[in-house]
């Protein structure tokens, strides 16, 4: 490691050689991983907001079936036409919004944010690399994502509207719904899958090839490990869905029947298809991706939480090795648990036993990971700043979501809970107060590296406490609703199954259960309102936030903080050399309570 002064001059020197690229090549067609990361981030956050707005309208509608949506109702009626006649969401529109909420949240918001944005921005910096291994592939990946996103977005406005068969797009429903939105969905998915595949190839190759000298596998920050496993999940689980997507597309446009059985009678008439297909084939191929995908959503989040916790407890993460092995185990096992989403297709005992067993086994590494995080708190010197608050809240929230996965994992208890709001609550606890909190933590944490300014701590706290409270107000009642038997994906929120409508039905939904809809609605509105300070905070702080006084404002050990702020093209002035593991905080005998990874053992040659 050179002394600091030559480093600076070196950087200036390198810059003088490059002529300034123009706006387009700098911000739009950039091949720099940091710019691409930010592009991913902003696009994904926009989709996140959009996905949430869809859901807010839906929540309003199911709390007030048959009444026009306030404020946006007239707009919906004008833009979308018949499906929102009089500002009331029809069942078709509800189904569109539901399917697109799921699709957008998973494929257009959270994965691009967790993998595309944070992975792109942080991973090369963390491993001491100048860029991704294939910068142009990286750009292509982002562009494919944008194209996919545009196709999905446009599909709302075509006649018939967007896809309506749920984010799972089960055949034969997906093929029999008359809207072309279904076709748009498939084409959009093919672009998004391509984007993810290109990204995955790039990430894995980068992590294998571009680690700085001394950055051995066991010195990688856990975040990098998480992204590495995530990359493999995307790489190997997505292609079967792409294959399935192609087949469903053929069913839709070329009249084949990959997923349509013989003797299908839609609307009372035998369908004019050859038949001979299998609806379950689609489910297998979908969930073969679908389950690994949920770990794609959670692993990067765990990686972020790990970095933030270690940094703000000022101590090393407890059980680094078990974290690494657990995430590898999760990655491996996630490929062989998928059919726990299909128990109630009538699965036999042998296969269901297999999948129940693997499902239970895969919960163990998650337990280990969470345990490691919990234990890491012990003996720390905990700083409660905004990123840390979000990271800490992640733990019990993911805990609730993960634990409620267990009753779903047994086929016998799934019998009662399958396709109820219990499932909705289960996975939202993992993806919303879980993953999204971790992503918020990541934004607050790395914001100073990206911009050189800190976000407002005060408004950060408002954002945090508001989000924590309202997330729980939204999702906690859903457990009760699900346990009472309320089914998901109902455009009237289950009013048809309520005791109010059918008083003599045993097991109908009680007034209390139905009235929770109102509570959830207000929770959702509150949740939306507390995001406003966050959005303002992000944009305001870019220009007006408190300037950081050093390149390493959080006194962190990992390499991304050992670069200039924001890092220049090529990241490091000279190749860093790594001398130690990622979490050398509060080493006994050191004056500083952090020892960066690139600091030599003898205290350096300063």
């Amino acid at each position, binding site marked *: 490691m050179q002394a600091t002064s030559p480093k600076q001059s070196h950087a200036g020197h390198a810059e003088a050689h490059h002529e300034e690229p123009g706006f387009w090549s700098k911000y739009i067609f950039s091949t720099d991983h940091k710019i691409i990361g930010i592009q991913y981030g902003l696009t994904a956050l926009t989709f996140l907001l959009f996905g949430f707005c869809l859901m807010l309208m839906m929540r309003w509608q199911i709390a007030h079936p048959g009444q026009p949506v306030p404020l946006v109702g007239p707009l919906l009626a004008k833009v979308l036409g018949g499906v929102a006649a009089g500002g009331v969401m029809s069942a078709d529109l509800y189904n569109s919004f539901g399917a697109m909420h799921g699709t957008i949240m998973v494929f257009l918001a959270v994965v691009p944010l967790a993998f595309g944005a944070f992975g792109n921005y942080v991973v090369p910096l963390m491993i001491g690399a*100048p860029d991704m291994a294939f910068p142009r592939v990286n750009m292509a990946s982002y562009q494919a994502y944008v194209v996919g996103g545009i196709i999905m977005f446009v599909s709302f406005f075509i006649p018939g509207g967007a896809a309506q068969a749920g984010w799972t797009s089960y055949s034969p429903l997906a093929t029999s719904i008359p809207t072309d939105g279904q076709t748009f969905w498939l084409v959009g998915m093919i672009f998004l899958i391509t984007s993810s595949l290109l990204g995955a190839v790039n990430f894995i190759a980068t992590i294998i090839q571009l680690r700085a000298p001394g950055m051995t596998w066991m010195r990688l920050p856990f975040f990098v490990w998480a992204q590495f496993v995530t990359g493999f999940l995307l790489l190997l689980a997505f292609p079967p869905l792409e294959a399935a997507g192609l087949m469903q597309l053929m069913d839709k446009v*070329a009249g084949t029947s990959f997923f349509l059985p013989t003797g299908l009678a839609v609307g009372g008439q035998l369908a004019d298809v050859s038949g001979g297909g299998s609806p379950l084939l689609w489910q297998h191929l979908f969930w073969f991706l679908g389950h690994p995908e949920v770990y794609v959503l959670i692993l990067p989040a765990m990686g972020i939480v790990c970095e933030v916790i270690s940094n703000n407890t000022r101590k090393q993460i407890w059980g680094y090795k078990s974290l690494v092995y657990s995430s590898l185990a999760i990655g491996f096992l996630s490929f062989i648990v998928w059919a726990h989403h299909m128990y109630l297709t009538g699965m036999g005992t042998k296969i269901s036993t297999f999948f129940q067993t693997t499902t239970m086994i895969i919960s163990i590494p998650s337990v280990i990971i969470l345990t490691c995080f919990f234990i890491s708190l012990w003996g720390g010197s905990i700083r409660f700043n905004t990123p840390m608050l979000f990271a800490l809240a992640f733990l019990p929230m993911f805990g609730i979501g993960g634990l409620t996965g267990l009753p779903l994992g047994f086929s016998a208890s799934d019998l009662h809970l399958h396709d109820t709001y219990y499932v909705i609550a289960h996975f939202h606890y993992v993806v919303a107060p879980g993953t999204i909190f971790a992503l918020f933590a990541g934004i607050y944490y790395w914001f100073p590296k990206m911009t050189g300014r800190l976000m407002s701590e005060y408004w950060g706290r408002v954002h945090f406490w508001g989000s924590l409270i309202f997330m729980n107000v939204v999702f906690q009642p859903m457990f009760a609703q699900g346990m009472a038997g309320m089914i998901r994906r109902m455009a009237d929120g289950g009013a048809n199954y309520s005791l109010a409508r059918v008083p003599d039905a045993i097991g109908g939904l009680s007034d209390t259960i139905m009235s929770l809809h109102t509570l959830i609605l207000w929770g959702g509105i509150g949740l939306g309102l507390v995001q406003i300070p966050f959005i303002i905070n992000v944009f305001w702080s870019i220009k007006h936030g408190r300037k950081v006084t050093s390149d390493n404002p959080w006194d962190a050990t990992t390499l991304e903080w050992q670069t200039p702020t924001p890092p220049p093209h090529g990241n490091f002035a000279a190749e860093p050399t790594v001398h130690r593991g990622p979490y050398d905080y509060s080493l006994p005998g050191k004056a500083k309570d952090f020892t960066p990874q690139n600091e030599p053992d003898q205290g350096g040659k300063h």
Partner: protein
Amino acid sequence: MEIPYTAQPRKDTGLYNAKVGIWLFLASEVMLFGGLFSAYILLRVGATPGTWVHGLLNIPIGTFNTAVLITSSVTVVLSWAALKVGNFGRYRFYQAITILCALGFLGIKSFEYREKFSHYEVWLNQPVTVTRGGQEVQTDRLLGHIEYQGHHPAFWSTKTLAEKQVESFKFTPDPIHYKMTPKEMAHARKTAAGRKAEEFEFKAADVKRLSAFVPGHSTYFALYFTLTALHALHVLGGAVVIFYIWGPGAKMWKTDPERYTNRVEVSGLFWHFVDLVWIFLFPVLYLL
């Protein structure tokens, strides 16, 4: 800092970046075709007995096309070997053969496709009597060709008959049907050889279903077209890349020969994979 290991291998892995990249990409391709193969197997074992189409593809042409693809694969490695010893001319020669083979493969494939589009199966309301393997049989399903107003139309379906208000059309049945076992089909073909084919005139009202050999005909043809079209897209893509490196991209040979050779190797790896997929597709679709 520049991106390292674009040409030279990294010490601990022994690999240059693009090689890791292409193998990862191939891994995902294995899963892509793997998904389709799984679909094939599941649909096939789940098919009602006697409904699985087989024996309708042109085996000699398929065999020839297999040979074409294998040849292109060997010329790829030979061209790479030539580059390794610095013989750019020989590289260009071999790779030119590769590209020609690729075009040849696609040409033959499109010819096969076209042939299928004007070949039909008809499902009849009342059985008719045809000669199969020297015997008269009653059947309500026939394979064969259509003649209508002197043309041999392609892509017709039951719907077309109504749309075009066809009253009747001429039908020349094949001597075989896929309900027969391979043995029976071979026998039927042999006995029918040289004989003048029977001809039928079917009224539109006699026809329950009519379908050309298009994806919608049956699960088998759905798989056949999806798999081979996807494969053909890969052939096309590979050929474009190889051509780009061979032609416009060849400048790099002067400036950075090592990286250029790597490019050739990487594109070659992709090409072999495409060949490898075909090695499975051929028996699965043509022979079984």
